[in-house]
């Protein structure tokens, strides 16, 4: 799926020996994803979601987050995966996108990990059918790989306004 050539940001090596980014990793379907810990506001357990008529397809509805009404996105719908019953592992990950909060319903949250920049591959040659604009890179944790999402582009702009 991707080309394993190392193509690391120049800044990584010559400034500080080993720069590390922190990511919150979560599961959607079989895949592990990560979002920068800086973007994550909180993790919430599943609560009742209010359905909104005529909402965008991937918007599940709205929830009350400490007094604000914020939209939640069903990541399974967003990734065109078959729906799954919410269970005790289901979590709403609250991320901040362009100064507003958005909830992402994910199957489970795994961990907060430190990934050294050298283990993040930021330029990936995918096959054509994958939209890479919202992917920050692929991180390597030991043997497993994590798709690092750029929530700003993933949830903001076009992805939020298109149907």
């Amino acid at each position, binding site marked *: 799926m991707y080309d394993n050539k190392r193509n690391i940001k120049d800044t990584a090596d010559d400034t500080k020996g080993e720069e590390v980014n922190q990511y919150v990793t979560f599961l959607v379907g079989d895949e592990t994803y990560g979002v920068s810990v800086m973007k994550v506001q909180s993790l919430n357990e599943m609560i009742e979601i209010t359905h909104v008529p005529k*909402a965008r397809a991937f918007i599940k509805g709205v929830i009350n987050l400490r007094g604000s009404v914020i939209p939640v996105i069903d990541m399974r719908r967003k990734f065109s995966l078959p729906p799954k019953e919410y269970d005790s592992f289901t979590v709403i990950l609250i991320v901040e996108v362009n100064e507003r909060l958005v909830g992402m319903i994910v199957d489970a949250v795994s961990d907060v990990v430190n990934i050294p920049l050298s283990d993040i591959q930021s330029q990936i040659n995918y096959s054509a059918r994958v939209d890479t604009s919202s992917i920050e890179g692929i991180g390597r944790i030991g043997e497993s790989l994590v798709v690092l999402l750029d929530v700003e582009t993933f949830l903001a702009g076009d992805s939020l306004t298109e149907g």
Partner: protein
Amino acid sequence: MGEGGLTEVFLNECTEIIGNLESDLVTLEEKNDDQDIINRIFRYFHTLKGSSGIAGFTVIYEFTHNLESLFDKVRSGEILVNRDIIDILLDSIDYIKDELFSDSGSPESDTIRKDLTDRINVFLGTTDKKEEEPEDFLKAVGAYKSVGSNERYFKIAAVFKEDIFNNGIDPLMVIEDLSGLGKIISLTVDKKRIPDFEKLDPEKCYMSWDIVMKTRFDEMKLRDVFLFVYDDNEIDIENVTEKYNVSKETPYIAEKKLGEILVEKGIINNNELEDLVRMQNDKNFRLGDIIVQKGLASPKQVDEALSEQDKIKKKIEISTVRVDSTKLDNLMNLLGEIVIGQASLHRVADDIEEEKAFRLKNSLYSLDRVTREFQEQIMSIRMVPIGPTFEQFKRFVRDAAHNMGKEIKLHIEGADTELDKTVIEKIGDPLKHMIRNAIDHGIERSDERRKSGKPAHGTINLKAYHQEGNVYIDVIDDGKGFDLEKVKRKAVSLGMIQPEEEITREKLVTIVFSPGFSTAEQASDLSGRGVGMDVVKTNIEELRGSVEVKTKEGEGTLIRIKLPLTLAIIEGMLVRIGRSVLIIPLLSVIETIQVSRENYKTVEGKGEVILVRGDYISLIRLNELFGIEANFTNPWEALIVIVESDGERIGIMIDDLIGQQQIVIKSLDNFITTSRSISGASILGDGRVALIIDIHGMVEEIKNR
């Protein structure tokens, strides 16, 4: 960083001043000898100049200096107010606005400025040029604040050294010198230092003087008088002009005691005051009485001082604090949280054992009362008078009317009617549109008006008032009214109605609010090309208001805007459909009924209707519109909420009524849904989110399906 802040403050100040200037100048054109307005305008120019100097806008500074000089001549009566002057001044303001607020300094701005300066100089040049240097210089450096008149007041406290005579200086000479500079209003000699006769040294000066004088000169000039004694003696010169012009604007005055006022006026001096206060404390007398008794001041003087004290008090009462409006929003949000929290406590009370529940509920009810009052207070902070918004149209009407060759007066009523800040911010544009329409299409030319027996000048009335928990703004013109025949022809030609269609007057009038409608045969640069009234309508509906038009051919038009008092909290009716809770704004609700099977019908082309007191009204199945499941599918089993939108009644089918409560509106990001049926959301007592139904939007949405 600091510089940025200063500029911002300056620009804010300018916006305010320019707005006031425009409105005042237009008023001045009508009442061209109103000294109050003239003085006010002069002060505005002066402040503008001073501030631009401080903020480093040298070009503006120099330019406004000219304006100030020009207006000074108006003030002194050398130049009479006429349209030319007002034109120059308004054009100049336009230039200043442009210079300050347009991002890209336009390349012509220099030419414009030169042009304006030339025009100003024509006025300045043709009149007698005898402006005095020192005064001009002073104004330029902004050395004194008050410019209510050229006269300044100074209070001079002179305490000379005892051995002053040894230096060959006689205080009397100094005072004589002073009197040559102006008029000495009061002179008090403090003789307290004079020792007993045995100890008196005739070669020593034991006296000190408190002098209040009126002069056209500045402080420097006064200091010059004391040139030789200034360093060694206690000479205190204070500009007290503002205290003497106290009825004008003196925002800096703090609360003052009667004694202090008298001292300031130079009627008594500090030492006397101290004695008096001591006496007052001993004998518990009123200070004023003691003063009069002691013959230190006449009763009249004391009375004057007392009335001055009152004025100062009043000023303090209306003193204001500028607060960042986001702080108010935060406060409002927090209050919203409290309201939500209370609602959830009420729910808890429902679940617990009766006796405790009773006590809890009682406490909650009193808490409710306090919160409601609290809310009203916060609301009142957010309330701003509509006056300034109205005022800004004076200039607009003047210019637009001149351009159209019409004579129009703008009459303002209810300027102190208060509206939510957000509403004020958003109401300006729609109002402008309506006024524009009235100028453009409504009011006829003078000759036309005379023929139909009306006064030559048209009048536009802007009127704001409160009624039944709403704010109304009326825009009334005494023009020719809507030509309904023309409206109809136009509507037919646009395919909005069928030629043979019988249509009521009311319906025809509302057609003007349809997108793309304009009857002006020739679109003027004023009222565009049919993108007017529909925008007005949408803007006002966004503020949860409505527009209504009444027109009488030949007599004029009234456009009435109805707005809610506040945007943040509404009374809502909670209803349940299936598992969903929805909120219907109580203002729209007329009644809740059950309908019998016989009174329910399906009408071809109109959908489902129910018979309510002899009228058939359409029925809306909210569950279908919102894609949710309802318990009841038969209207005769469900409850029907009758609501009203645009004078039309509609029945909404619901499963159950939950109750009525205060609803804190939370807006929904507009990317979430395209539905027009939802105006926002609110958080219920149990923490769930409920959507608020926008009745009007819902009706529109259904009609467009």
